[in-house]
């Protein structure tokens, strides 16, 4: 499978995430679109890691070139899990203060 297909697919997912962040008003949906963008990048990292591994495998059958990309994806997932817990706590606190999750009510830091 050519690498361009994966790049186009991940770009489409990433752009859908960007459009969601720019257009939706619900803070939870905006947050979900950020998760979508993270997943698009994860898939692209794995695809590139397999690309380099496939290229290096021809010279050395026991190589582990490209394993860094997959570990990077693992760490991105770790950080995303931590980020989601804190972010959802912030959204819950915002809902408790303003009784809404509309991001238009967040245009000022005061009050």
């Amino acid at each position, binding site marked *: *499978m*050519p690498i*361009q297909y994966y*790049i*186009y*697919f991940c770009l*489409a*997912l990433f*752009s*859908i*995430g*960007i*459009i*969601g962040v720019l*257009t*939706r*008003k*619900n803070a*939870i*949906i905006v947050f*979900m*679109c950020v*998760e*979508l963008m993270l*997943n698009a990048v*994860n*898939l692209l990292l*794995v695809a590139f*890691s*397999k*690309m380099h*591994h*496939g*290229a290096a*495998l021809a010279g050395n059958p026991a190589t*582990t070139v*490209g*394993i*860094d990309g*997959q*570990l990077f*994806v*693992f*760490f991105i*997932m770790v*950080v*995303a*899990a*931590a*980020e*989601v*817990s804190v972010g*959802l*706590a*912030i*959204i*819950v*606190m915002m809902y408790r203060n303003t009784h809404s999750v*509309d991001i*238009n009510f967040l245009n000022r830091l005061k009050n």
Partner: protein
Amino acid sequence: MNTIQVLFFFLSVLAIFSAIMVLVSKNPVHSVLWLITVFFAISGHYILLNAQFLAIVNLIVYAGAIMVLFLFVIMLMNLNADTAPRKNLWMKLAGVISGGCFLMVLVSLVRQTVELTGKTVMMKEGNIGLIRNLGKALFTDFVIPFEISSVLFLSAMVGAVVIGKKD
């Protein structure tokens, strides 16, 4: 067209359609369910790439834990759709146009790149995605970031409790 290509295009179309449905759904619960479909499709892509550990971790962490957290928060808030304020159509259009411009610029960039021509991704072969090799690399070369991530989790846990606490 062999089986892998058919699976690739099926999973891609499924993921993109579900991602669009995440955006256009009025009900946030439906958005969460469509996003779970996206994560399943991406896990299918990981399996196609023989990254088995990441496929399972993606299912467990994203579709299992994070999305359930989103569902809990949405159900905790009792949002109904008619309380949503009037949306500005021009702002929506501007967002779609800017996102489309971003997509167009990057696609044309990829099309012109000489370094990427002829490169192929190795499908369903290669053993770097197996848990044996990943674990070996994780506990030898990447053991310091692995331990630091535990501190990150502890701080995120403390932060979530402190922020969510009613004072």
